[in-house]
């Protein structure tokens, strides 16, 4: 009989107690999905995603002691990651932020059409879509990560989907014309 895997909070406590391997174990659970969310936030830019995730780990290492246990470690990690992504996006010059809209640059990015459509959405709607449709994410955790009530999340998700469809419909018509 294999023993139960340690809880995230236990891993964090072990890391804070000096066990560096515990952080590796925590990373094995979440680093890949964190990279996915960050990649979506940065319109498919893997380098920017890596930077954001590394910054997130750095924050975990430095401020892990401030984790109060009011939420799960997973929620905490994603919250930090989103904050890092927002800060990085805000610090980018406007030209660089819009550079991915150039179709020529988008050839290397998978599903560039979707990313272009997401780019046209307001930031809070884009975040709701990316977080909620991230594999393995529940609406409850997404609401906690985004810091909004569950009801607000659902209504915002609905309107974001409507807007995204409208944008994609318009772009399809433009392509046909």
């Amino acid at each position, binding site marked *: 009989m294999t023993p139960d895997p340690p809880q995230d909070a236990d891993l964090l406590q072990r890391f804070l107690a000096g066990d560096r391997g515990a*952080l590796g174990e925590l990373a094995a659970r979440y680093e890949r999905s964190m990279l996915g969310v960050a990649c979506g936030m940065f319109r498919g830019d893997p380098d920017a995603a*890596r930077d954001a995730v*590394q910054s997130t780990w750095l924050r975990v290492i430095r401020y892990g002691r401030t984790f109060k*246990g009011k939420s799960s470690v997973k929620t905490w990690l994603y919250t930090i990651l989103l904050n890092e992504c927002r800060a990085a996006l805000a610090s980018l010059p406007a030209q660089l932020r819009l550079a991915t809209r150039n179709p020529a640059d988008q050839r290397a990015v998978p599903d560039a059409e979707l990313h272009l459509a997401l780019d046209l959405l307001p930031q809070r709607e884009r975040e709701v879509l990316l977080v909620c449709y991230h594999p393995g994410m529940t609406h409850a955790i997404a609401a906690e990560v985004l810091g909004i009530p569950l009801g607000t999340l659902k209504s915002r998700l609905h309107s974001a989907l409507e807007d995204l469809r409208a944008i*994609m419909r318009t772009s399809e018509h433009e392509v046909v014309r």
Partner: protein
Amino acid sequence: MSGTPPDQLAERLARATAWTGDTPGLWAKALEADSKDRRARTIPDAATRLWRRPWARAAMFVLAGSILALVAASLAPPRPRVGGSASVASPPAQYEYSVNEQWRADQEGTSRAADRLARVPVEMSAAIAPSAAPASPPTPPPDAREPFPTDRVVIRKASIDLESKDVRAVAAKASLLVNEATGEYIESSTVTGGGGEGPARIPLNASLTLRVRSERLSDVLNRLRDLGAVTAENLDGQDVTTEAVDLDARLRNEQRVETELLELLGARTNAPLKDVLELREQIAKVREQIELLSARRDRLSHLASLATILVIVREPLATPDQPRPAALGGHLGESLDRAWTDGSRALVDSLAWLLRVLIAGAVWWIVVAVAATWAYRAARRNAQRQAAPTPSAPAPPPPIPSAHDPAP
């Protein structure tokens, strides 16, 4: 959605947030970056943490203030003891005459003289151009300078209180100590009291101010001590060497200017009347200044050459009659009165002591108050932390009912 079915859109969104590459192990890189960064910011962090504590800030301010005070005290030049009181047994400390002071005095005088000469009309000053040395470099060759004064100029003052039954005789003997042939004299002599009879008699007092040569001061004081019982004695010495040197230098320079102006006046007999009058006016001013300085210098020399002794002779106080023992009631009243006075004085004394302690240690009280406040807050924080339940701690299990417990 016409072109994109809902399930297809969800799939595309899920793909957009999925990581297809390998996991680069960013946590390890973050650990490495943190350890590098931590090494770089250990000392500044410790300093910042320390600075956040109020007691540490207060201690640093006190330390900085003390260091500043020490530095200021060490940088301040030592002041010579001038005009201070000297004990009878030990003579005043030797005043170290400074070479720099002599130069400063000379140069100040020279610059003042140069100013005067600058006001002389241009035509006339041209005539004495070679001799207008004061306006040019003020330092004469070392061999041309006058030797530094080696004697101190000290004004000595002494006072002595004597007690004697025969006040008049003591006063007369004291006045005989003055040797008028050598310039000494009695500056003032006063005898008061002596009137009345019995208990209403006013005690006789005599007061003499003697001016004796400085070198005879000790001798005269010794003789005065033999004339009666000494009740008080004081000796003061005021060192005026610096002032004397300054006066000498200024006097020399004024005399030099006067000589040059007179030479100028003699050389230019055919100068315009206006210039001659102006020159004479300058000479008069210089002469006036010379007289003033000479008078001050003479007075200083006079004061220094003759010491002043104030002699006060008093009759000894009559011994009061022994009071008769008071009655019991009177004794009680006296005792209560004494107790009241003593108690009030003790209260006032203790209040004064308290005030002294408060004022003298004001700085340290502030430090102690800050430290106590910090300690109190820290203790309270600890107490609150211990009192608050830990959210993550599981609730204690309910007690297992014992077989002996009665059924609820």
